[in-house]
């Protein structure tokens, strides 16, 4: 066991996911500096303060928008075998999860409005544990349906869920 390590899961998510994350991050990062920017332009006596506030929120926001999506794309990966689901997610803080199919309770798909724009889907695999589900986000619609079919077929075969 000395020189082994976990390899990343086999499949990357769709490359469209980068654009999805970028749009998400824009929606998150833009409103605040925009508000301060408008105030900066429209209330002359407070220029100084609002200029700094605008810049103070704009610069980290832009860095987030530029850095996060490609970084996430490098990390987010998934793989399903006949025995287990294996998924990696996160960017700065990363999470790798393995769940044996025999312990899966439910398999859901979720398509948020933003994901729909990019024709993406998310698959959520829950177990009896309260520590959260395994989420595979940003894969293609058709791929997600196949995945759900595969997962439900194998989880039905094994009823035990260790509650």
């Amino acid at each position, binding site marked *: 066991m000395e*020189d082994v390590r*976990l390899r990343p899961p086999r499949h990357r998510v769709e490359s469209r996911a980068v654009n999805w994350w970028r749009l998400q991050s824009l929606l998150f990062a833009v409103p605040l500096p925009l508000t301060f920017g408008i105030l900066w332009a429209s209330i002359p006596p407070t220029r100084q303060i609002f200029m700094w506030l605008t810049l103070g929120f704009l610069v980290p926001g832009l860095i987030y928008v530029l850095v996060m999506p490609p970084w996430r794309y490098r990390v987010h990966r998934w793989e399903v075998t006949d*025995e*287990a689901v294996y998924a990696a997610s996160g960017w700065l803080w990363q999470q790798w*999860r393995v769940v*044996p199919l025999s312990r899966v309770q439910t398999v859901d798909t979720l398509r948020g409005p933003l994901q729909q724009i990019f024709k993406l889907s998310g698959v959520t695999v829950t177990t009896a*544990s309260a*520590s959260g589900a395994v989420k595979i986000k940003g894969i293609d619609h058709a791929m997600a349906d196949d995945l759900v079919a595969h997962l439900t077929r194998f989880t039905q075969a094994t009823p035990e869920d260790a*509650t």
Partner: protein
Amino acid sequence: MSRESVVGTAEHAAESEWGRLSSRLILVNLAILVAPVVMFLADLAITGDAGLQALITLGSLFVTFLVVSGIGLMRLFTTRYRVTEHSVELHSGLLFRSRRSIPVDRIRSVDLTANPVHRLFGLTTLSIGTGEQSTSASHRLALDGISKADAVELRRRLIEARDARRGYAVPVEDDGPISELDWSWLRYGPLSVWGVGGVLIAGASVYRTLHELKVDPLKWGFVKDLEHRFGSVPLWYGILASVVVLVVLGIAGSTATFIESWSGYRLTREEGGMFRVRRGLLVTRSVSIEQQRLRGVELVEPIPLRWARAAKLNAVASGLGSLDDNRKRRMLTPPVPRAEARRVAAEVLGTDRSLVLRTGLTRHPRAALRRRVNRALMWTVLITAVPVGLGLWLGPGLVRGGLIGGAVLLLVLVAFAVDAYRTLGHGMRGRYLLTSSGTFAHRTVALRQEGIIGWKITRTPFQRRAGLFTLGATTAAGEGVYKVHDVTDAQGIALAEQAVPRLLLPFLERDPRSAARG
């Protein structure tokens, strides 16, 4: 609202089979009015006049009482329950009629709880747990306010029906309780860290309630007197005196809490493969944990208890409800001597006593120590920066004080970091995964292999640089995930493979770094 799942069995059963809540529930409804009225009268006695505000308060209390007792009466008349061969049924509600039926073999636990008012009238609350970890408390099936005799009888019948259904009945040898309250444990009562905080919270809530009723304690004679005396002594003396008062009150408070929560404590083995914890002075609690659902134990040693060589033992079990419910119900022992906690652990799990012993576990790499020391340094710098920063602006006295304080803080935090590193450990003992960690409270968890339903590996940027990760064993029991902090790839993978063989195997590869070396 209603969950009509398995109804339809024994529809012909006679009406008399249905059990009902106790009619003494009406008296309980009256009792909620007592405290506010007493307070109002006390206020009247002290201040001598009832202001409009107080009258409005009283009026709204009365309306609340009407609503609450109305709901109570409706509950009393509409709630009925029965146990059939296959399921336990509960009907309730007038506007929103709810009929719930739980198959008896899904029953994971049956708890009896009684608050002081309930006990005054010989009532109790019986709740049935079915082992859904995520569902809210409202989904738990509870009979609030049945008579104590009925509750005990119902509990016996439920467990009996379940065992008959499952086709086994575990005979209990009556070899006495596994553990019972020893009053010498009371010495650990004052060591609860919550005491001081509890005093502040209680004080604040009493003050707020009085304030709502327009009673200002700051205007009472003896308080003013106190204020005068405090006004004339030096500041440090005042601070010292208040700290002493707080600590004394805190110790008294946590001792009282210990007595309230742990009087009459008994941990017993019951029929149907259940463990039952009974405890409480004013509120009596009874929690049943099914042996099959018990996935392990957690030994907790918070700082003051650790200094006294004491520990608490929690069950790691599924079927104890949501995470919050689980935290309230998982206690297997009060703070007890460490050896006693280990004995109870061995007894309930059927292992030997050294199971939750930290010595002998695999140590974690030095990089884990570096992470902890770095964290201590970071906190020292952040905390010291405040007075020093203010000092640069206000005067050099603060800078000096801040630096001295920082040096002391550094020593203390580094000592904590080293201790936290020493606490780290993991390994397999028989069928149990052991993990130990903690800074202020040391936690040693033993989790049965079969209970592990997946792995959650997390890496922070700092961990990635140091070549470490945190291996979390996810489970349906207890907290949902138990973590082995800061292990190397090789250690973590070896542990995971030992605990759940062949799960990680398809996802492993040779480390290219070491391949290049060798």
